[in-house]
């Protein structure tokens, strides 16, 4: 399943949102992966939505 996660870059380029596709088997897994990405790269998660 594909989920579209909208992140916000926090930092020098603070403010602008962008999205990435997360491929996971459930929304919970997608959320967990998005959290890992956000933590590792310093993003803020704005929303997660089912894509397609």
């Amino acid at each position, binding site marked *: 399943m594909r989920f579209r*996660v909208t992140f916000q*870059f*926090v*930092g*020098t*380029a*603070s*403010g*602008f949102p*962008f999205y*990435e*596709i*997360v*491929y*996971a*088997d459930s929304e919970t*897994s*997608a959320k*967990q*992966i*998005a959290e*890992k*990405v956000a933590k*590792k*790269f*310093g993003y803020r998660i704005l929303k997660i939505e089912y894509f397609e």
Partner: protein
Amino acid sequence: MGVLSEVAHPLNSVWKLISQVPLFMLFRAVDWPKMLPINYTLSLLYTCNSRCLTCNIWTKHVNNFSVDEYDATFKSVGETPFWFTLSGGEPFLRQDIVDICKVIYRNCKPGIINIPTNASLYDVIPSAVEEICKYCTETQVVINISIDAVGTRHDWIRGFPGNFEKAMKTYKHLKEMSLPNLTIGIHSVISRFNLEDLEDLVNFVESAKPDSFITEIAEERIELDTVGSPITPNLMDYEAAIDYVMSRIQNMSFKKIGIFTRFFRGHYYELVKQILRKREQVIPCYAGWASCQISPDGDVWPCCIRGQSIGNLRKHNYNFPSIWFSAHAREIRNSIRKKECYCTLANAHYTNILMNPLILLKKVPRHNQGYYQVTSRPPFMREAKFKQIQESIMRINNSRQEMVRGIRFKADTTFEADARFKCLCGTRISVQRGQPLPTCIQCGRADWWRLEAVLE
């Protein structure tokens, strides 16, 4: 001998400057002794004839400071400033720019006056620069011409048809003048819009042979009204871009102040990478202590990123020290000291690097050993060209390189861990473990996924 005589006065001023470093350290640590800044950025006007994709400053309108107002202000700071940057807007749209420089020189005798310009006013700039250089004999005048790409690509980024051609006319005229205290540089903003133009840009710089070449990352600034605009390249792209630029320019010969700026810039680019990675002040910031900015209508800011006024010169009878040492200024300094902000602002980082001299000592040998290499393919660079550059560089190591340059994965590959991938087109995806890699939804490629990170 030639080089030494060209930079003699700034060198003298540099020694004077270095002697002040411990005092600034004390000022930052314990608020004593009271020091006035050494690095001033004067935003002369917001008006601009460019419509850059990376800047919206031209939308602002204020009541600009007059020459007399600058005169009164700089009388109050005496000869403490070392470095002035006259920015804008387009500074040469001010018909009194020569008078402003004269006022600065008469009151402050700075070591350097730096004027960034889009160089479109080819019939005005050379004569103005000549007059400034002839008046400010003991100051190095640096004219930094903004070039973000070559030809019509530059015009597109700058929103100004014919800008590149006009800038080249100005550049040629300035070069022909050969004034001893004039440094002509090229200045490029690395943004999301010109990553694919870097190779052409560096080729152009090589052939143009400017006295200096510097780059700056496109930033979201309050001053430029760009907060929230998607102009900043991401960390991976920026690292690749700056490594590529440095690897190409490290063997170019620069002149005059360009020798110093390249030295400082090398450290600055390394700092930018660290700042983008860590998202914090990597070295203590001295904006608000050693550097400041004055807006066209007289607001004094510690820097243009925060764009926070600590007072208006018009309301303080043009007495700069009364603003600089006010309680409000102390509050903002406290916030900067507590690292409540961070940025990659180049101008402030010059003073930051100067005030943290250990950094300079630590990294000097790395330049001599050819530290800068092409560590990854610049975005959209042709594969064959990249290989050619790679082959010419002997030292290839470090784990990041393996990750960035390394293996490409194909669609339908599965992994034993959650991971994040990037396609050649720049699209990023995250994939749960056990899930097959898809084809890229953006460009349809099925075999160009590079592993960006394992998510554990």
